[in-house]
């Protein structure tokens, strides 16, 4: 299998201060890859500060890793030639969280679609450009005559976010990095956006990395999940297995805290107490130890990944009877 995108031991450390340097580890030794031949939807989940957005920025090439490499189709993305770089920019697209901020209020929404067409010279005539736009809009379930020529304020948040997805689709990408694409959209409109994303994956063969803190939507769109906490992978595997039977205490807490719209499934049924984070991250042990209700003496050391079954792994000493999994081989447990 040839990986489409591959992260090898990627870490990102932000440091601040000139004299007293304080550093924050936003992403800690992450290795992941997506297969080029089997387009999939992978969820990266975690709370604020878990490193989700840092991962998105790294994948999009906006920032460089502090250590480790990111390969796109076998090439290190920090060392691309200008031609390769343009190709990378075209084939790896982003959908961001805020459907309001990405539009320039002075231009009709066509602007968002026509700029990439000009930039990447996708069409040599106006009619062709129009066709491309219509095709992309149809792909996300919008009708061109409903939205083209309108200004951003005349459209709903859901429509705007679908135009963003259409813009990504226009460039026929191989990978879309969607950073919280539905969190600012009304609950009743989320379904349509998620449906467009799934359609892109199924019909156009585009791989999607879906970054979110909302596990209910992740459950519905994704095939696999990676749960991040303070830059480290806590649990990973098949989405159905992880959500229905979470094994890491952090994932259990996360899933126990989802307000399911179901009267029979009460909040906190798993009896997971919530503890405050106390102080900054200290030492080299398990990142979740300070909030973990099951914390033990050995949690002062960093737990390895323990492979619970074919499609699930947890980085926790509660599961140390299971075989260890090399950090670099995390992808093996993720179903495509």
């Amino acid at each position, binding site marked *: 299998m040839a990986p489409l995108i591959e992260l090898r031991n990627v870490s990102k450390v932000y440091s601040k201060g000139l004299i007293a340097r304080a550093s924050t580890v936003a992403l800690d030794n992450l290795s992941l890859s997506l297969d080029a031949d089997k387009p999939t939807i992978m969820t990266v989940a975690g*709370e604020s500060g878990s490193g989700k957005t840092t991962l998105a920025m790294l994948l999009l090439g906006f920032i460089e890793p502090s250590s480790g490499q990111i390969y796109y189709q076998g090439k290190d993305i920090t060392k691309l030639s200008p031609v390769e770089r343009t190709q990378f920019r075209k084939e790896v697209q982003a959908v961001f969280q805020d459907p309001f901020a990405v539009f320039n209020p002075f231009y009709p929404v066509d602007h968002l679609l026509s700029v990439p067409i000009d930039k990447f010279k996708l069409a040599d005539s106006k009619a062709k450009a129009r066709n491309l736009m219509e095709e992309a809009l149809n792909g996300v379930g919008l009708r061109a005559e409903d939205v083209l020529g309108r200004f951003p304020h005349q459209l709903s*948040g859901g429509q705007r976010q679908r135009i963003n997805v259409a813009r990504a689709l226009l460039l026929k990408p191989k990978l879309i990095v969607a950073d919280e694409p539905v969190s600012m959209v009304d609950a*009743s409109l989320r379904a*349509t956006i998620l449906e467009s994303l799934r359609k892109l994956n199924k019909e156009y063969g585009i791989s999607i990395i879906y970054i979110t803190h909302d596990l209910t939507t992740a*459950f519905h769109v994704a095939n696999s999940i990676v749960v991040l906490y303070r830059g480290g992978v806590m649990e990973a595997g098949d989405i159905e297995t992880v959500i229905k039977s979470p094994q890491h205490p952090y994932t259990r807490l996360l899933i126990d805290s989802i307000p399911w719209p179901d009267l029979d499934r009460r*909040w906190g049924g798993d009896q997971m107490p919530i503890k405050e984070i106390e102080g900054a991250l200290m030492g080299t042990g398990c990142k979740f130890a300070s909030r973990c209700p099951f914390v033990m003496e050995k949690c002062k050391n960093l737990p390895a990944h323990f492979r619970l079954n074919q499609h699930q792994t947890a980085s926790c000493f509660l599961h140390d009877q299971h075989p260890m999994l090399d950090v670099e081989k995390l992808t093996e447990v993720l179903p495509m």
Partner: protein
Amino acid sequence: MTQPVLTVNNLQVTYFTEAGRVRALDGVNLTLNPGEKLGLVGESGSGKSTMALAMMRMIKPPGRIEGGSVVVDGVDLTKLNDEEMREARLSRISYIPQGAMNSLNPVMRIGAQMRDAIKAHKLAPDADDIEKRINAALVSVDLKPTVAKMYPHELSGGMKQRVCIAIGILLHPKLIIADEPTSALDVVTQRQVMQTLDSVQKQLGAAIILIGHDMGLMAQFVDKVAVMYTGRLMELSTVQDMFTNPQHPYAVALIKSLPNLNQRGVFHGIPGLAPALLRLPPGCSFHPRCPIAQDICKAQVPPLEAKTPTRFVACHLVEKIKNEK
């Protein structure tokens, strides 16, 4: 029979914009008993926040309360003068706005901000009493009293939000309105904040109106749900009835659109878009999106009627649907 803590009667709010009059709240009726938790749900622009602001009498021009009354604990808020209303806020009715945590003053200590709120109401004359109240409020939201000496930037988002709840309950109001109190927080913090709100509400015996669009949160938190659409109440039922047997077609679609653990990858969006308030369709405002609309729906606005003692539905066809089954 208990005296209701809140009675909203035919509340109407209009915004006078350049493009014309926009009726943001169109004759809303509501009663709430002490200790009850009501969820107010609807899409953006359905009038949820306008409802909260109208009850607090904080609608700003070009908006105006055009009619109706808001009776809290026996006092009609719409009849008070400005000074009396200022005193009623926080002591009778308190409001935790959306993104409340960003409303804390960054250059004042938490304690000083809380002290301001008490002093403005002249309820606790001596300093000791004020400190006691501040400590009690902080403890009741699970924060250490030392938080009073901290600045907002020293606290996490969830802690700031709980400080805002503490400010909201300082003067033991009878009614707390929380407008999307957890919209910017992640799920674990959200659960913690909501459980805090729940325990505080039980201690005070106050009624709560929780505004939001997250039906999951409603299922976990409230006793009654009111569904709003284009400034009108569409259905008001107990949370059990709403989730198991919604009546209004909009409520039915809303419940159906919820993600469900059993059917993975099945989405039911609500087709169409909410109409602009400036150009409301005649009759029932939901009829263009309604799968079962009839001629009568295009002509007459359906009133909110009691279908059973605890269920109110504004739909011409609800009785008929029941009979057909």
